[in-house]
């Protein structure tokens, strides 16, 4: 379980997180939904340990991780993986080296041993196959489309089988078909790895497709946590953008149209 308690984070005078609380159960896909710029990615970066919060705690399976020394932090990182918004593939390495990068630098987190080159190649092939990207091993990231980069990023993430998977705006900038593919891959990855996933997005379609639960992020707080069905029923005038995002969802549009008739 991941437990976030009273988390505060600011950049200069801009207070982004204002005492945020959230609990994510082991084995679920939690979607953090909110408008662009409210600090969803900031929250993800605190969980991943890429930034330190001003105050508050983050516990992963009972271990407080916010104040760990760098070395201990890296130990925790071995069980976590993040898909970055822009994929963050290493420009100077081909896709094979990108996907196998973790094992070139670290021992296998499960066995604690360094993998041989054959084993790394095998893992890379399996991961690329899982995301439907066979045959691109020797290509450079610049040769791939946006959607392929996202899938290669996901392959890099699942290659070392982390227990906790963090996704930062996984469908942003993709066409609807490619976005659907990524959504399907998130669910497929979750089913195969049986880990815990946190998906940050402002895409309601994606949220409703992948989520076990949806947490609504507004003004530095989580103001609602609900499963997708209950989420669609939320009527709260204090939530600035809820109506705005739901109105675009086909399910809501359909209900409205049938009501008008």
């Amino acid at each position, binding site marked *: 379980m991941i437990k976030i308690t009273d988390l505060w984070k600011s950049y200069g005078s801009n207070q982004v997180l204002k005492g945020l609380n959230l609990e994510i159960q082991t084995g679920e896909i939690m979607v953090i939904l909110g408008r662009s710029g409210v600090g969803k990615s900031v929250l993800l970066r605190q969980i991943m340990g*890429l930034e330190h919060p001003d105050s508050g705690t983050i516990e992963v399976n009972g271990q407080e991780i916010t104040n760990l020394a760098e070395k201990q932090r890296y130990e925790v990182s071995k069980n976590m993986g*993040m898909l970055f918004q822009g994929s*963050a593939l*290493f420009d100077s390495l081909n896709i094979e080296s990108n996907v196998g990068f973790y094992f070139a*630098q*670290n021992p296998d987190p499960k066995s604690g041993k360094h993998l041989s080159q054959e084993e790394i190649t095998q893992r890379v092939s399996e991961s690329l196959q899982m995301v439907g990207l066979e045959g691109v091993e020797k290509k450079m990231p610049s040769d791939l489309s946006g959607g392929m980069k996202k899938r290669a990023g996901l392959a890099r993430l699942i290659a070392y089988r982390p227990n906790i998977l963090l996704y930062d705006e996984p469908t942003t900038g993709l066409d609807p078909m490619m976005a659907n593919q990524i959504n399907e891959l998130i669910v497929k990855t979750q089913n195969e790895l049986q880990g815990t996933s946190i998906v940050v997005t402002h895409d309601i379609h994606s949220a409703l497709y992948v989520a076990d639960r949806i947490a609504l992020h507004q003004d530095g707080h989580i103001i609602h946590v609900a499963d997708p069905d209950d989420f669609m029923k939320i009527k709260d005038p204090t939530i600035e953008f809820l109506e705005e995002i739901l109105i675009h969802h086909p399910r809501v549009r359909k209900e409205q149209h049938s009501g008008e008739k």
Partner: protein
Amino acid sequence: MYELVKKNFFNIFNAVGEYSALIYQTFVTMLKKPPGWALLRDQFHSIGVLSLNVVAITGASTGIVLAAQSFYQLSNKGLAGVTGIMVAKAMITELGPVLTALMVTGRVGSAMCAELGTMRVTEQIDALRSMAVNPLRYLIAPRFIASLIMVPLLTMFSIILGILGGFAIAHLFFGMSSSNYFDPMPIHVTSFDLFTGIIKSFFFGILIVTICCYKGLKTTGGAEGVGKSTTNSVVVTYVWILISDFLLTMMLNSIHQEVTMDWL
């Protein structure tokens, strides 16, 4: 006005602190776990081998111009015979280290800053950390070690080509014999001169890699930010090479004089 001064002072103070921390942490990281050979080999190639052309052209052309100028200025005073000494002294103590450092900054330092800056703004450095890889060990330490070794080597290469270039001009255009050009050198060019040149090049190597890497790691603001960081890193490194050249010249010569006086 007070606020502006206060803000700038704070920014400079902050940057110096972060820069010092980067150097310290890089050292600690290198000592704990040195970077692998593959990473070092890439940087040796990038900093050393790929800089050979530009350093060779700079060194040789400087030696050529220096020899020509020296000969024209000194020959009418009957001092044409010191042309070789002039070229060697100037190349070893000043022009070799400084010009090599400036060229390496322009060719390698700017590329380092742009590469790290791009990695910063495209979250590649965050991706490294998310995979339990220390960016200081993976990105900075290999560049640091390679720069520390290759900049002095490139400097020596530049000095040798400068002296040889000077001889080519002195011999071909002014009819100076090799004995006239080279023979006085061992007497007038001391081991202290060589020591000065090497110490300076080590120091410049550290300046180039640390300033350019620091600027790269601090890049924000997308493609425009990368451009600004890169320009800024080159300008700041140039300025600090020139300032530190003066300070090192004064310091090393003062120490040398003290030591010589003690011996006497």
